[in-house]
């Protein structure tokens, strides 16, 4: 199993511990990663997709072509990259004129995109290609007695028609829950599981409204699951639920603290990798949950 590791901006610069986690777990799970040298921003929504469809597809196609040239698909741990690249590909595959115009532009830099390579989400690669059995075997620690609330994130789910892998019911997603359960966790559902975390454009436009969404979700998690840990598949949700939570605590709007991890970080911790490297960046403290995983969870 070989994929091109598509990093995206948030993971590269803000949360490189997520990158370290993917790079750590992959070889032990039979996944080979290519660096896709020269990759850029996916493009994220607030950039060229807000300007022009062809420009959006062209930047996306250049990134996808880096994999296609090597005969591999991309894999990402960022929901935004996943959906921007998937939607761009969908547009190109479903409209010959878009594909033609994009390739006209790519020709100027000596590139071509045929539509073969796609961008997969790391959670789906783990679930479908690696498989739950192999994940279970690779884990050194079991998450006994640890209660998890999951945050799949919008772009993991919708619009399902453009995504390469689809939940049977995107309004009742199971993949992330299954991935957590196989590590031994008690995964509890909650009403606002599929609600938006409030990150992205909403946050840069109106911080207060963004916090309002985060607060609604966090309070729901607290009340309905009493979770020890929130696990997400998206780097934006990770940053938002971690940082907005700290802000809400500081302002006295919430009086609890629930650590947040990306799934690949949780997996890397369970596989015994150095917590400083694979989960060392956060503002909502993680020390307690990490000790709990490492000290009491030995299989």
């Amino acid at each position, binding site marked *: 199993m070989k994929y091109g590791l598509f*990093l995206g*901006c*948030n993971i*590269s*610069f*803000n*949360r*490189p*511990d997520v*990158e*370290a986690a993917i*790079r750590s777990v992959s070889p032990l799970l039979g996944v080979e990663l290519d*660096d*896709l*040298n*020269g*990759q*850029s*921003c996916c*493009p*994220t*929504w*607030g*950039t*060229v*997709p*807000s*300007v*022009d*469809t*062809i*420009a959006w597809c*062209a*930047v996306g196609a*250049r990134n996808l072509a880096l994999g296609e040239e090597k005969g591999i698909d991309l894999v990402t741990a960022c929901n935004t990259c996943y*959906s921007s690249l998937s939607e761009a590909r969908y547009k190109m595959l479903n409209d010959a004129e878009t594909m033609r115009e994009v390739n006209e532009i790519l020709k*100027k*830099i000596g590139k071509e995109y045929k539509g073969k390579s796609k961008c997969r989400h790391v959670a789906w690669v783990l679930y479908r290609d690696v498989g739950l059995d192999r994940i279970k075997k690779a884990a050194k620690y079991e998450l006994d007695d640890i209660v998890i609330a999951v945050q799949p994130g*919008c*772009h993991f*789910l919708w*619009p*399902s028609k453009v995504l390469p892998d689809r939940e049977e019911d995107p309004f009742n997603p199971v993949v992330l829950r299954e991935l957590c359960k196989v590590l031994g966790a008690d995964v509890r559902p909650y009403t606002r599981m599929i*609600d*938006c975390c*409030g990150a*992205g*454009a*909403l946050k*840069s*436009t*109106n911080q207060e*409204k963004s916090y*309002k*969404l985060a607060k609604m979700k966090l309070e729901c998690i607290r009340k309905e699951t009493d979770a020890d840990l929130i696990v997400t598949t998206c780097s934006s949700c990770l940053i938002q639920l971690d940082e907005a939570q700290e802000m809400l605590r500081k302002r006295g709007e919430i009086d609890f603290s629930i650590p947040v991890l990306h799934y690949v970080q949780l997996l890397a911790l369970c596989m015994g990798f150095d917590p*400083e*490297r*694979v989960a*060392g*960046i956060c503002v909502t403290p993680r020390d307690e949950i990490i000790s709990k995983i490492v000290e009491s969870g030995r299989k």
Partner: protein
Amino acid sequence: MEEHVPAVINLTYLWKKEREELGEKVIETIKGFGAEGIEYCMQCGACSSICPLATTGFEWYNRRLIKAIDFGIRDELFDDVTPWACVACNRCVEVCPRNVNPFEVMFAMRRLMIEELAVPMTAVQALKSLYDHGHAVYTTGREARKKVGLPEKPPTTDSDEKALEELRVLLRNTKLPELGLFPMS
């Protein structure tokens, strides 16, 4: 011309404006910016029932924006930030029973606003950063990467001058330079 949507909408005025001033129906303009399905909307409200913008009290979320455009309103909306708050979550696309693709309407409005230079600074900065560094989100501080034992530069345009130049050439061959948002030479 008032810069907000008036309490009483004068349909005759809007109809005349489309014919005499704009030379095109606003809905056609929006279709041209990628929202081809807008006319299928039946205002059922499924999209707004699950839109995070509606939940948090933004004014011109998907269903309402579609109605406004259908009436021929555009310039009056240029001061409104709602399209720029759209998280592109695509919930609305998933639930729309008429294949309208409300997300594309929000983004078509952005594309029209950008042409009219009714664009928030954060969007211009993100575009400029994409052009300058190949990354919309970019930091020069690399403590985080060093801390977790990774090379200071990721294997992106950040560590590859040739790739960055390639991306710039690509961007110069899109619609972006026409807009004149920042120098691109």
